[in-house]
């Protein structure tokens, strides 16, 4: 009991034998903070500063302007399609990989991670090679008057590609660590497949699922390179928010570019905040689970 009553600081403090002298400590902290300030915090602050530099009127005008609104709509639409698709994929892949033993499993995990190591530009290009006018399906698509490249479906495809791994790679280690005993117990007690998944598995992975979804969504809304290749940059039609930022910037409309960019920066901050909250829930969940297993 005594130990738990002590304030956190005295429990956390490292003994002197393994502690650096104060001047070393503060020098290292100072260096780290200087680096982070220079490369992270200043750019972040600058986005909001530049966005609001010319006043709130200019700021809001840039955001409610029709092309901006259409870009917001498109970005939301793309995320609304890409994220659920990868959510279903992530659950299916994690179920197969974490709950069963089969050959070629590690190869499959590597394949799932593949999109992470492909340059965004190449991710867009490969869809042009298939669906573009000179692509494999190009002539057939043109005949049937279907447009994929320079259209919303191409943007969705490229976004799905770059966000494939996010949810699966969160769920796989989580579900592997949880093992299969609870599911086996459920089946032995008479539960069918859906009951086992929805009542036992899903509640156990909900935080990991949410975590992966948040990251997946952030990337889906923020993707630039891949989308840039397949979009065609048609204002008011195939422009997502990041592409809209680029157009405004290239037109030297800096205030508007930063105004729209600030929306995306806000999205990033919300993502980080949610991520931090969910992370602490996951840690807590894990501690409970460890307690659950041990003793």
């Amino acid at each position, binding site marked *: 009991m005594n130990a738990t009553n002590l304030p956190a600081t005295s429990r956390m403090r490292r003994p002197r034998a393994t502690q650096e002298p104060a001047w070393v400590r503060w020098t290292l902290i100072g260096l780290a903070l200087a680096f982070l300030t220079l490369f992270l915090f200043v750019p972040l602050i600058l986005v909001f500063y530049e966005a609001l530099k010319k006043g709130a009127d200019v700021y809001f005008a840039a955001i409610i302007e029709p092309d901006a609104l259409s870009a917001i709509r498109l970005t939301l639409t793309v995320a609304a399609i890409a994220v659920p698709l990868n959510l279903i994929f992530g659950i299916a892949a994690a179920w197969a990989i974490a709950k069963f033993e089969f050959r070629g499993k590690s190869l499959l995990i590597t394949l799932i991670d593949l999109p992470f190591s492909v340059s965004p530009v190449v991710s867009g290009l490969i869809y042009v090679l298939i669906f573009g006018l000179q692509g494999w399906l190009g002539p057939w698509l043109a005949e049937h008057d279907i447009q994929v490249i320079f259209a919303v479906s191409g943007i969705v495809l490229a976004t799905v590609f770059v966000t494939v791994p996010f949810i699966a790679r969160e769920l796989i280690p989580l579900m592997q660590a949880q093992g299969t005993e609870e599911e*086996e*117990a459920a089946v*032995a*007690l*008479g*539960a069918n497949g859906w009951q086992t998944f929805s009542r036992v598995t899903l509640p156990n992975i909900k935080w990991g699922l949410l975590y992966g979804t948040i990251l997946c969504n952030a990337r889906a809304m923020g993707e630039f390179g891949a989308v840039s290749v397949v979009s065609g940059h048609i204002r008011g039609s195939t422009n997502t928010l990041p592409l809209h930022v680029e157009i405004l910037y290239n037109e030297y409309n800096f205030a508007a570019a930063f105004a729209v960019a600030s929306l995306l920066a806000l999205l990033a901050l919300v993502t980080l905040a949610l991520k931090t909250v969910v992370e602490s829930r996951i840690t807590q969940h894990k501690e*409970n689970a460890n307690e659950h297993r041990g003793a």
Partner: protein
Amino acid sequence: MSIEVRNLSKQFGTFAALRDVSLEVHSGELLALLGPSGSGKTTLLRVIAGLDVADAGQVLFQGEDATDQHVRERQVGFVFQHYALFRNMTIFENVAFGLRVRPKNVRPPDAEIRDRVHDLLKLVQLDWLAERYPHQLSGGQRQRIALARALAVEPKVLLLDEPFGALDAKVRKELRSWLRRLHDDMHITSVFVTHDQEEALEVADRVVVMNGGRIEQVGTPDEVYENPASPFVYEFLGNVNLFHSRLHRGRAWIDGIEVDAPEHAEAEELAATAYVRPHDIEVDRVAKDEAALAARVTHVLSVGPIVRLELIREDSKDKNPIQVEISKERFRELQLVRGDQVFIKPRRFDLFPNQIH
């Protein structure tokens, strides 16, 4: 309900977990599957439950082939080694789970589920924990909840995988006798897996000793302890001393002492080993006849009613220490201290011809 398994075999890669195992579990008995890790006991239990499928062989429930029956249809209650309680559900919901997932037409009404769960929680003496979560319970409590959950679906058979494996010594002992009493009240056919011989001998009606995917011996605790069928069973159940021996036409020489061995009348100049329990060795200060071995006391442990001696033979090449157990009274009579010379003689023994590898 009785269980029978016939000629079960199962491989995991190159590892043979079960080799041609056949066994009968009588209706209403409490049976222990005892063996070291890797002996196939857990695999056998999982095959009976339907959690694993054997490569060959049959499982019969009440004489009916259940080999291809899904675990859902077998009506077995299974208690997992780490309990596998659903961590996201309260204790109440854990126990109610098996009833709640039933199809609508056979699902009991909510009120009945509530009553049944509370009855079960009372049975395991934990009804005050209904609204807690598994991680808030101690190991022993979780174990009892796991049992209550398995019983909720009114299984015909109860299967327990190392039910006390993860508990500390004191809780183990309490739960052991509690399980025995519970079984005596309910008379449900039960099989449990354990690597702890004391647990198996103390709790079970019959014990199945397994080794290397095979059954070594089946019998009541008394039978397997008093009459081990193989050297393995001898060594696995309790301490035993080994003596180099020789067999020839119904006679045996245990480290030079000549004795009768009528069950080995056929043996011709066979190398053998005599297995002698520590309490089956007679200890004296003086040699009463020639058939005694001289030894020296190297260690005395006199805590408790039994005194444990460690001896080294003086006139033998075999310098492995011999473990002997004598009563406190006998110890007082002999007044032994370290370094004393004694004469020992096996009172009861079993002879097994050495395996030729």
